[in-house]
């Protein structure tokens, strides 16, 4: 197996592997038949408003089928997006998007400011995130050594985000220009999936580059940073609970 697939499986190992959203330009009933082999079911499909980008939400995915999908993910022919567990998760993610209807892939000052503030807050709490560029903003992933209750994760994210938005206001910016979502979201299980690191964005064809302190890394450096984060930055449960207690006491 490709070492990058192994890395992806390890990093995202805490997420359910029996369901997936696949983004691809492939389509048509013969393709769908192929996708749905070995008991896989299509929950729904989607075609983009313009162009032929398709999304397929699949359930009943076998390990063999998932391996094949991950291989096509790093081969950049399909994108694999995973859902979160219903009750507990060992990964959580902030999804920051540019909240404008037009030119929303533009990197606005509010986004740069928010991602810097949020990263610093999380580092200060001992929960360093892996920051990955996405189509309209950034995903900030935090990886825990063991699963934590979804409600607790959500409250942690809500509070840290509130603190970041406070900083944004103090610098004279409007938080409404940023759309912030947190996953897992206990209110909407099995609804939103997030694209995994290691492929090109389906629309703009830009690799999911990692944002370091010094800026966006290139593809090779991003893979190295991804592995480094997996090995060195996984958050202990003690550290997470300390951070959560500290947040509760202050916000």
């Amino acid at each position, binding site marked *: 197996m490709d070492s990058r697939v192994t890395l992806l499986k390890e990093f995202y190992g805490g997420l359910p592997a029996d369901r997936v959203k696949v983004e691809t330009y492939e*389509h*048509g*009933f013969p393709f*769908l038949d192929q996708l749905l082999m070995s008991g896989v079911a*299509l*929950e*729904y*499909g*989607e*075609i*983009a*408003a*313009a162009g*032929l980008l398709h999304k397929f*939400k699949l359930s009943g995915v076998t390990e063999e089928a998932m391996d094949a999908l991950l291989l096509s993910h790093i081969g950049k022919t399909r994108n694999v997006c995973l859902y979160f567990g219903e009750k507990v998760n060992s990964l959580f993610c902030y999804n920051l*998007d540019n*909240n*404008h*209807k*037009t030119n*929303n892939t533009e990197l606005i000052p509010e986004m740069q400011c928010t991602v810097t503030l949020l990263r610093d807050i999380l580092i200060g709490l001992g929960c360093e995130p892996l920051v990955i560029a996405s189509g309209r903003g950034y995903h900030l992933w935090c990886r825990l050594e063991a699963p934590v209750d979804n409600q607790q994760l959500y409250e942690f994210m809500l509070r840290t985000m509130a603190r970041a938005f406070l900083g944004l206001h103090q610098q004279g910016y409007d938080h*409404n*220009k940023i*759309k912030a979502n947190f996953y897992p979201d206990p209110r*909407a299980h099995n*609804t*939103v999936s997030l694209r995994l690191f290691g492929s090109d964005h389906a629309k703009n064809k830009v690799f999911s580059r990692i944002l370091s302190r010094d800026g966006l890394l290139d593809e090779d450096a991003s893979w190295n940073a991804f592995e480094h984060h997996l090995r060195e930055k996984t958050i202990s449960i003690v550290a997470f609970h300390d951070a959560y207690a500290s947040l509760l006491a202050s916000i």
Partner: protein
Amino acid sequence: MKTIAVDLDDTLSNFTETIQRTQFPNPEQYGLSSEVFGRYIAMLRGGVSDAGDLLSTEYSYFCYKIHSECYKLATARPDGVEFMQWLRANGWRIVICTHRDLRRSNEGTRQWLRDNGIPFDFLFLALNKLDFCKAWEIQYLVDDHLFNLLHGDRYDIDIFYPIMSKHATFEKRAGRGFHDFGEIKQWIPG
């Protein structure tokens, strides 16, 4: 295989009528004063979309919640249900093709279809249904949307639409209108 795409809202269901006639409560979770709630309801019923430049707003969230309610409350057209069952009995592959955000309404939509005895093979979200039908080589589309009647001729897709008042003054270039779903049977293979 014979394949047909069929729309849901205002085709198989009375979605818009449901929005217009339902007395919606203003639950606390919306966080809206009665004045704002009333204004938003009026905007929604008038087909007003968010005028601002932001994607996610208080009003967009409100619309999502009311639409979700209406997906559940809307009733199915009996002649539509009968037609869908006829399609199934006659070996058609049935694709439900909708503008609904299936990311959030997939399960509820499936439940509604099951509850109303409407058979289908696949659910698809397509904002441009003509593009979708063309890409998937689907020859037949049942849909009320004016866009399809205006542009359908360029796609060489057979479009059938339930005749509604909004179609009356519209310059149609494609499609056949029907009063009863059963009329479609004469225009497609058995």
